[in-house]
């Protein structure tokens, strides 16, 4: 192994400090016994206990999770369908217009998306609550799913679908039995992307949430406006923990799959030799 030069060590330290110092400070103060956020008064897990007693936070967390799961699932189905049609549908009239329109929400300012959805919901007399947030999140995360899935479909060998048709599948069977299993990784990462986008969305949710349902980001934001409390630090620490576990698990799983595939190939080569 080559030793790292002092320059590399410095760059690494600086970079990581820039990325993680704020979070470390937050985690550190979440274990502060004092009610004052910036005055250290000894180690305590008091705020975690109080957090669990706080009905409002727990409710908001539950709503956020529900919204994220439902909206990302719907967005995945719709986004995959849209991607499939745009990549596979051949040249139909207005195809370029349609694909442009799919991607437009990606660059649309969130405030505008939120406002237009709010006006729509008021217009059709829909009471704001979990349903409206789900609809709003589906709307904006669908195009992200569509982008991820269509980039996979472009490189997909079309003759696989033709082979399925040739062997007697209906077009739907060909999609379900051949296309979908092969593009599944892209569909899953589309879902994960939609899920994370929904989890931390503040702007659109604040337009479409009603008194009946508030998401965690809205709750935290409004709580912070009244002053940062150690409880918020504790909550944020838990969220960091969940995200870390999720990311590490995902990367471990994909690394293990890659390793296993590599072993299989090596085994096959040994058997062939």
């Amino acid at each position, binding site marked *: 192994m080559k030793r790292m030069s002092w320059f590399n060590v410095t760059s690494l330290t600086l970079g990581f400090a820039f990325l993680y110092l704020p979070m470390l400070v937050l985690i550190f103060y979440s274990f502060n016994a004092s009610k004052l956020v910036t005055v250290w008064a000894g180690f305590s897990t008091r705020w975690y206990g109080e957090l669990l007693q706080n009905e409002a936070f727990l409710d908001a967390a539950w709503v956020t999770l529900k919204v994220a799961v439902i909206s990302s699932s719907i967005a995945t189905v719709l986004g995959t369908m849209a991607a499939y049609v745009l990549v596979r549908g051949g040249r139909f009239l207005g195809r370029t217009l349609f694909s442009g329109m799919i991607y437009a929400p990606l660059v649309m300012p969130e405030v505008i998306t939120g406002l237009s959805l709010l006006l729509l919901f008021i217009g059709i007399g829909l009471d704001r609550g979990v349903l409206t947030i789900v609809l709003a999140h589906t709307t904006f995360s669908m195009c992200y799913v569509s982008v991820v899935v269509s980039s996979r479909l472009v490189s997909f060998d079309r003759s696989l679908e033709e*082979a399925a*048709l040739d062997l007697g599948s209906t077009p739907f069977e060909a999609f379900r039995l*051949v296309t979908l299993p*092969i593009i599944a990784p892209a569909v899953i990462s589309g879902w994960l992307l939609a899920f994370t986008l929904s989890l931390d969305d503040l702007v659109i949710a604040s337009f479409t949430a009603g008194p009946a349902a508030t998401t965690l980001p809205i709750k935290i934001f409004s709580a912070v406006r009244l002053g940062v409390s150690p409880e918020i630090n504790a909550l944020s620490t838990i969220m960091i923990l969940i995200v870390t576990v999720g990311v590490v698990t995902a990367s471990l799983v994909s690394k293990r799959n890659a390793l296993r*595939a590599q072993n299989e190939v090596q085994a096959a080569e040994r058997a062939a030799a």
Partner: protein
Amino acid sequence: MNQTVFAPWDDPNATPLIRFQNVTKRFGEFTAIDDLTLDIYAQEFFALLGPSGCGKTTMMRMLAGFETVTEGRIELAGQDIGPVPPNERAVNMMFQSYALFPHLSVWENIAFGLRRDRKTKGEITARVEEMLKLVRLEKFAQRKPHQISGGQRQRVALARSLAKAPKLLLLDEPLGALDKKLRQDTQFELMDIQETTGTTFVIVTHDQEEAMTVASRVAVMDEGRIMQVATPAAIYEYPNSVYVADFIGDVNIIEGRASPSGDEEYKLDWTEGQAPVLAKSQATFSEGQEAHLAIRPEKIRISTEKPDDAVNAMQGKVLDIAYLGNLSTYHVELPGGQVIKAQTANTRRIARRDITWEDPVWISWSATAGVMLDQ
């Protein structure tokens, strides 16, 4: 032994399995297939041969149902298959890229088509085992496509397309991805399998050797048209045009003006100051008509002395020698500047070869060695 020759195309009472009737296919402005009529008979091993872009793959995709016919109709066993979608045709295809389903094992790949037919578990298992045995892949049934070699993948693709016992099997450049040695072995394997299963095979290829080896009949195509349909031997020995003669194998073309000189015999004046070439021809040519004489290099003899008995003999100089191991091709330049290729089998060791570069030599051929063509 009373062996009947398989030649349904010569039998006026035979009904073809596939009929292309004035089929035209256009992609926008581009005409891929131009008013093409062709019959293919049951149990044939039929090869569509041509350079890339000649329309051979389009013809195959129309048979499979992936392309629609612009004009004309295609019949399979007497039925117009135009309106039948690919999944309802009794036709299976082996794709150039093999198109094996990467997420399914070899076994599952072969069973895929059978499952779609709602067959019972027992039937499926029996048929898959039978197919695995046919292509000798029993040991690899549980492997995924990426865990087997290229040649094995090719056999899985073949087994998968044969599993449903189609009336017609289409093979799109099936051996293109294999190296030469493996390709030759596989050609014979394909022929064996075709004979055992009695399936009609239509193969698309740009490799003329491959078409000649495997096919019962070959169709040579160019720019959406069929130039000639015949058995490999007939295509090679009696090409109907300069294009076909030139496309299949190596050929010398001598251009000149024909003049009749007896029973089915013509003199060809081909250059100033040289004796005319004598050639037999079934086709008739009028006095002074432009004609091309196509002669295969192996039908031309090369010698150091002037042969006494040859009908056509001329002197030239060795320009180049291509040594191929079993054969040598001599490029002989005639006084007029034309280069004629002559090929001989190397029955003696190379050290004993008596002709070398720049040597004056005689080339000669008989009146029946070549074919006279008007186009």
